[in-house]
């Protein structure tokens, strides 16, 4: 056993940075807080790389398969005899992989933000929040138990909320942050319920125990508990609901496009590379339980992933806000990952989907962060989010153009860039599992290529737009991260994931299935070709095509009216039909009853007070008749 206690520092450094910058940031020069944050994260990144190299290679010589190692654990809260909430660090292939992804992207975003956020109010606040987010996300992936994960899950949600609402004076940003938080919070309720059910039945939160094939979760007696599915299945579906919320899966995706109101580096970090894949990570973390204990739940995961990827890809083709296109693209790609996990089995080559999902997570983090940061550079230059305001930018922004193109090719899945390798593995896994899902993915691959190149051409080619002042390339502090990420996007595909990240920790042989790969590449090329024809030079084709699809286009353009549905549910149902009646009920019925009691007492005393009229003879009369009545009753009527 090797000592990994120092991994504790990886989340702890950003946390201390958050406290430090948060408390003292307003007293220092803006740039200083940026530099402190960045250098702190650089240390965390170096530690992560050391961990990865040690875990995957140096400490691993002569051993077959990767074990999960509890590097560190303390009891945080004692709940029952069996259940305690622990805080610790769990080192296993997926957590190490996530450490790499998070620290790399986060570091790039930090560096990039030094330039991007220059001159903004709340510069130090931005870096404090970024550190908070990094802390939470790192704590999430290192979680040793599901409750720790839930804790950091919530923290991640809050940091996301704070960062989306960074421009808090902008009402749309505030609304978007609220929406993001509440939608994911709703999903988290499902997560919590899932945890409650799971822990009640298994008596543990611990991942190692839960995922152990002989552990209490997997060996739990099955049998239908409710609506034909076992307790375990239900709990896993609930947990997946949490994951789906965070990962913006249909139908809990509505917050993601709006979340683009946040500063672009935030979108790159949180809403493209790291936080949104937390759902995927959650399923991957509990994968043995899903695969061995409740395959039904895994089917749900697969279908949700498949539907989301198609749904998002269609919408992405119609949007004009470049960040929203990227947001839908993210949703679509995460759908891929979910689907990959959903179609996977456990162990050996059956676990291809698991490996592919994580692989795609890894490569996607690189190229999607790159796309977002590139978009940030473009927005920085043009001061607009809308692709209608852009065109012909390749002349002004050469580095951005080059890196953006690389990212587009990568996401389209053209060999030998990384996107091709990971996507291909997913296709293979899907082919072996479910042909319908497989064909959906083929379609989505084409759509992806199409909308990405639509985006690319609209920005960099197309009509030459006149700008108020000539756009100029971003400073090096912004372009260097782009180049680093582009490097990652190109070469990440050559990592031997099938040897490193597998469902049971054992390496397996995996090779390219050309019968699946070639058609997928062809479809991607078809998409690119279509986009080239339509958008490389400004022409009337897009409008004509939109006309052909008619209502379909309109529906996709309006995101299938999901926002309106949600608005209906929240505004109409929650506000109008629950809260307002509740408030009314409280004021008028419950409180009204109390007031009625008060008023009755008041009226009664008013009534009684009439006897106290001050009129002597009335008193006398009452007294006399009362005395007579008493005599009558006690002497005559009540015969003792």
């Amino acid at each position, binding site marked *: 056993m090797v000592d990994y206690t120092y991994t504790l520092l990886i989340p702890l450094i950003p946390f201390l940075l958050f406290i430090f910058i948060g408390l003292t940031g307003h007293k220092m020069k803006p740039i200083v807080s940026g530099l402190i944050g960045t250098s702190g994260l650089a240390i965390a990144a170096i530690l992560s790389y050391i961990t990865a190299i040690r875990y995957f290679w140096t400490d691993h010589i002569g051993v077959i398969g990767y074990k999960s190692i509890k590097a560190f654990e303390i009891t945080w809260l004692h709940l029952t005899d069996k259940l305690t909430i622990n805080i610790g660090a769990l080192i296993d292939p997926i957590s190490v992989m996530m450490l790499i992804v998070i620290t790399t992207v986060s570091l790039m975003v930090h560096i990039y933000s030094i330039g991007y956020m220059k001159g903004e109010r709340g510069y130090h606040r931005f870096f404090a929040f970024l550190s908070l987010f990094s802390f939470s996300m790192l704590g999430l992936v290192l979680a040793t138990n599901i409750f720790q994960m839930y804790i950091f899950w919530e923290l991640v949600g809050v940091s996301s909320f704070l960062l989306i609402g960074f421009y808090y004076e902008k009402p749309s940003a505030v609304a978007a942050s609220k929406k993001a938080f509440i939608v994911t919070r709703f999903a988290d309720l499902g997560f919590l319920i899932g945890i409650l059910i799971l822990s009640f039945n298994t008596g543990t939160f611990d991942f190692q125990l839960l995922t152990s094939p002989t552990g209490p979760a997997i060996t739990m007696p099955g049998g239908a508990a409710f609506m034909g599915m076992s307790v375990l299945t239900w709990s896993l579906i609930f947990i997946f609901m949490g994951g789906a919320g965070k990962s913006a899966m249909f139908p809990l995706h509505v917050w993601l496009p709006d979340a683009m109101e946040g500063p672009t580096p935030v979108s790159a970090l949180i809403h493209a590379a790291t936080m949104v894949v937390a759902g995927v990570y959650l399923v991957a973390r509990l994968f043995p339980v899903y695969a061995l204990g409740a395959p039904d739940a895994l089917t749900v995961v697969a279908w949700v992933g498949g539907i989301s990827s198609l749904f998002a890809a269609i919408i992405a083709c119609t949007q004009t806000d470049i960040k929203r296109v990227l947001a839908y693209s993210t949703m679509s790609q995460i759908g891929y990952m979910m689907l990959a996990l959903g179609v996977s089995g456990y162990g050996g080559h059956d676990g291809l989907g698991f490996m592919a999902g994580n692989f795609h997570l890894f490569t996607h983090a690189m190229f999607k962060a790159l796309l977002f940061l590139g978009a940030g550079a473009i927005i920085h230059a043009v001061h607009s989010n809308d692709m209608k305001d852009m065109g012909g930018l390749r002349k002004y922004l050469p580095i951005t153009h080059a890196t953006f193109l690389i990212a587009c090719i990568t996401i389209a899945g053209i060999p030998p860039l990384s996107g091709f390798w990971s996507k291909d593995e997913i296709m293979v896994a899907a082919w072996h599992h479910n042909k319908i899902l497989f064909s959906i993915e083929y379609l989505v691959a084409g759509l992806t290529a199409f909308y990405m190149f639509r985006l690319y051409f609209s920005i960099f080619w197309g009509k030459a737009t006149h700008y108020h002042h000539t756009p100029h390339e971003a400073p090096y502090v912004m372009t260097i991260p782009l180049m680093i990420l582009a490097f990652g996007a190109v070469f990440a595909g050559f990592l031997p994931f099938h040897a490193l990240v597998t469902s049971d920790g054992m390496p397996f042989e995996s090779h390219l299935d050309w019968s699946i790969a070639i058609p997928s590449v062809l479809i991607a090329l078809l998409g690119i070709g279509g986009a080239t024809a339509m958008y490389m030079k400004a022409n009337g084709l897009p409008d004509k095509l939109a006309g052909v699809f008619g209502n379909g286009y309109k529906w996709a353009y309006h995101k299938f009216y999901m926002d309106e549905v949600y608005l209906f549910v929240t505004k109409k149902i929650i506000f109008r039909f629950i809260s307002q009646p509740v408030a009314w009920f409280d004021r008028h019925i419950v409180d009204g009853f109390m007031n009625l009691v008060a008023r009755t007492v008041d009226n009664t005393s008013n009534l009684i007070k009439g006897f106290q009229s001050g009129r002597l*003879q009335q008193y006398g*009369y009452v007294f*006399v*008749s009362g*005395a*007579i009545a008493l005599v009558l009753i006690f*002497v*005559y009527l009540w015969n003792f």
Partner: protein
Amino acid sequence: MNSEIMFYLLAGMILVFSVLTVTSRKILRAAVYLLFVLISTAAIYFMLEYTFLAAVQLTVYAGGIVVLIIFSVLLTSHISEKAIMADRKQSLLSALAVGAGALLTLLTILRFTFVPSALPAQTSTVTDVGNALISYERDGFALPFEVISILLLAALIGAIIVARKEKDGIIATKEKK
């Protein structure tokens, strides 16, 4: 036989004048009727051979109180002034209650069998009364006598204070013991 006639006569007077006292519309007359009632009562005391009591009744009641009342009547109203009577409803209701009460009490009295005592009567001459009043032994009334004297003093002072004319016309305190 004489005494019976005497009693009926007194009873009749008491009843008639009582009724007149409470119904007469002229207050001064009512006071005079009251005087007759009180005198008749004194006569009853004579009949019962409590002569000292009868004498007190005559001096204090008939002499003192009625005179006081007449004075105050004169102070507060004109002789010719007719008293306002209660409205019909009030009178009726009062009559009803009073009638019921009287009926009930009479019924009680008539149904109850009183057993007159055959013991020799204690004389109540002035000497007897005086002795009893200052005796502190059994059947002595020294304590009530003293208490009543204090009460009278208190009432005396209280009445003066209450009735005294205040400069600002506000009733100060009601000394009532």
